[in-house]
């Protein structure tokens, strides 16, 4: 076999240009997600062999620009500099070429080895655009490869071009943008202070342009080193006389884009697309909201009805296997500890995981369809106003909605938020959205203690309270987390696309795999830990560490009118909130069917209400914790979430019980 040479290719592009389709086409199943340390951004990588080369493709986050406006942009440009890719490929939507050229100009400043992919050539043609590919390539001085990714057209050409560029067989004469008589002298002046081609890997000219644009990260980089003191000083001088440099630079780039576009594209005078016509209905002031409700209802039902049914099925199949194993093999194990570990620890842990996977898969499919079709942006536009009432970003709507079904997909749905900060807030408030499991327990207990009319009122109160908490927590975090980025809605309305099944299948597969790998280990460990709590040291729940912990906490429970048994069931609820009822039947030593009668005897309605309030708010279940850990990629925020919800539950429990005891008796 020929020795393979390894090269790295970065895929850049603005959002919604079909970059992930191109990536999937290039790498197929040989892809994986790589979380970058400390950040909530997931970067996909994949391998393709071609012509004796092993090419690693890195799918950078979609960005409109390369200023340090969002983490995505910082990550994209850092990779281009620090990751030292052999080639950077920019994927462009040929049908909205003009929008993408702005990024092209910035990429040209950062790298010499750029290839443009003009994706969706068919759609561009349908719109009546005539793109002169050779002209465009000549103007920019880099290769341009036309492509129709959904049909697999143009891939080989791209791969060939990449190899040609790597081997230096193509002449690249990247366009150098001149920023005119106002900016250029400033660059020359500052460059005189550096006298180097590169600063920490960044091309000096690029760095200075970014400095003049007021790029925060570049300023910090220069400030951190005393040798660049002079530069910062003269930059501050320049800023005094002309504060609008960034606007001038952006305007100049747009003019340049206009020129390049006019020279290489012929377009019909009136460019009206089908998407615009569709949007007249979808974003209509009367029709829009009901359409949204319809779409979301279907999405919700697909995830939580179909997904749940599949989950139940998986769970059922698993329980059959479990039973078989227990009956046939477990009895042969004499050591009671190991027997218990397997029967009450390991198998239930697998059960939790197995019952999650179908639902997560359904969610990821639905998410990908809404995203890929272009509807997500429209839904965000319609929901933005309402989400602001909750103190959240418009793009968080799907996260809150899914949270009512289950917080795990709810938290995963925050991926659409482009700012680390907005996303963190959305992740941290999500556990406060009452999930179906909690709602189930709540309905059961409320119906025991209140007659129908009051029961409804109590449920409405509990749900309202939780939404109130979402809003308050959102507002609180908004104050606490440093506001670096501007967060008012700015969102592109991409052209509608019919989602490609292959693309969605691949996307879902990769994400489910990542979920299993990252979240499931933690779920597994937590379930075993809880098993430990309830087994040791005596094999009896009532005398276990868990029960002792419950008794230890009883004085605290007194403030809320809750005894140790209630506290112990809540600790059990960490497994999954619906487990609370099962735990109660064990602790109160009754069959699950007659649990209601027993509870009615031991609790007053007020105690029940307090219990439910605590149940609704207190710490997320292990699966939710695992997914918070996975999505925030930080233990600090995960722990904060646990501590916060626990304290909140405690406060609300005490308040409910004490205020309530003034009225309810």
């Amino acid at each position: 076999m020929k020795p393979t040479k390894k090269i790295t290719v970065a895929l850049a592009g603005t959002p919604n240009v079909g970059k992930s389709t191109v990536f999937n086409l290039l790498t197929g199943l040989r892809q994986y997600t790589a979380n970058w340390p400390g950040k909530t951004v997931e970067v996909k990588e994949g391998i393709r062999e071609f012509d004796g080369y092993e090419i690693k493709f890195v799918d950078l986050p979609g960005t409109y620009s390369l200023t340090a406006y969002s983490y995505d942009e910082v990550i994209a440009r850092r990779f281009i500099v620090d990751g030292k890719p052999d080639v950077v490929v920019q994927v462009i939507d040929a049908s909205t070429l003009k929008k993408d050229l702005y990024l092209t100009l910035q990429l040209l400043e950062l790298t010499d080895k750029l290839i443009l992919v003009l994706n969706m050539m068919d759609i561009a043609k349908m719109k009546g655009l005539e793109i002169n590919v050779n002209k465009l390539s000549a103007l920019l001085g880099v290769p341009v490869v036309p492509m129709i990714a959904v049909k697999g057209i143009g891939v080989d050409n791209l791969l060939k071009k990449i190899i040609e560029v790597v081997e230096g067989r193509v002449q690249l004469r990247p366009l150098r943008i001149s920023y005119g008589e106002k900016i250029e002298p400033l660059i020359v002046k500052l460059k005189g202070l550096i006298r180097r081609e590169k600063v920490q890997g960044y091309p000096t000219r690029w760095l200075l342009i970014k400095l003049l644009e007021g790029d925060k990260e570049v300023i910090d980089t220069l400030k951190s080193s005393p040798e660049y003191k002079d530069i910062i000083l003269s930059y501050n001088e320049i800023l005094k006389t002309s504060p609008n440099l960034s606007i001038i630079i952006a305007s100049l780039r747009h003019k340049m884009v206009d020129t390049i576009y006019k020279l290489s594209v012929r377009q019909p005078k009136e460019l009206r697309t089908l998407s615009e016509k569709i949007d007249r209905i979808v974003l209509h002031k009367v029709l829009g909201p009901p359409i949204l409700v319809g779409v979301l209802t279907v999405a919700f039902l697909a995830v939580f009805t179909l997904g749940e049914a599949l989950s139940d099925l998986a769970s059922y199949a698993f329980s059959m296997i479990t039973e078989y194993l227990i009956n046939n093999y477990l009895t042969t194990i004499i050591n009671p500890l190991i027997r218990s570990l397997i029967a009450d620890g390991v198998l239930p842990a697998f059960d939790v995981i197995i019952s999650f996977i179908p639902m997560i898969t359904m969610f990821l499919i639905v998410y990908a369809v809404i995203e890929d079709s272009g509807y997500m942006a429209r839904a965000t536009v319609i929901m933005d106003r309402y989400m602001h009432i909750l103190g959240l970003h418009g793009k968080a709507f799907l996260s809150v909605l899914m949270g009512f079904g289950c917080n795990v997909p709810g938290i995963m749905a925050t991926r659409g938020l482009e700012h680390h900060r907005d996303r963190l807030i959305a992740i941290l408030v999500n556990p406060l959205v009452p999930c179906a499991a909690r709602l189930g327990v709540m309905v059961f207990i409320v119906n025991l203690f209140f007659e129908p009319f009051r029961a409804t009122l109590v449920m409405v109160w509990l749900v309202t309270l939780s939404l109130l908490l979402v809003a308050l927590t959102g507002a609180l975090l908004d104050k606490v987390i440093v506001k670096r980025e501007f967060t008012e809605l700015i969102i592109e309305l991409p052209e509608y696309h019919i989602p490609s099944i292959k693309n969605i299948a691949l996307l879902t597969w990769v994400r489910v795999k990542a979920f299993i790998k990252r979240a499931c280990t933690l779920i597994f460990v937590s379930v075993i830990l809880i098993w430990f709590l309830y087994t040791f040291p005596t094999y009896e729940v009532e005398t276990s560490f868990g029960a002792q912990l419950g008794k230890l906490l009883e004085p605290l429970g007194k403030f809320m009118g809750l005894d140790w048994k209630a506290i112990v069931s809540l600790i059990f609820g960490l497994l999954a909130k619906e487990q609370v009822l099962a735990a109660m039947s064990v602790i109160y030593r009754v069959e699950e069917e007659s649990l209601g009668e027993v509870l009615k005897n031991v609790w007053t309605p007020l105690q029940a209400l307090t219990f439910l309030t605590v149940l609704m708010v207190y710490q997320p279940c292990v699966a939710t914790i695992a997914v918070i850990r996975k999505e925030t990629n930080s233990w600090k925020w995960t722990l904060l979430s646990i501590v916060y919800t626990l304290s909140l539950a405690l406060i609300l429990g005490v308040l409910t019980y004490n205020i309530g005891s003034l009225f309810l008796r």
Partner: protein
Amino acid sequence: MYNIIPLALMKPGQEGVIVHVEGGFGVVRRLAELGLVPGARVRVESSYWGPVVVWVSGFRIAIGRGLARKVWVKVG
């Protein structure tokens, strides 16, 4: 005759040229990067409550209403 009004007050279908963008440094630059710079032609696609959908240099973006109040457009 022409008027200068905020983007947020433009009617659907109305066109104009941006003359000025107010606001913090970050957001002004962001809008500039997306093509909302002084001199750019815009057309409002939809605007009733919530974000304003605006057509600019070949694509459409929705921007929050608060922000749309800060983009001044020459119409006429």
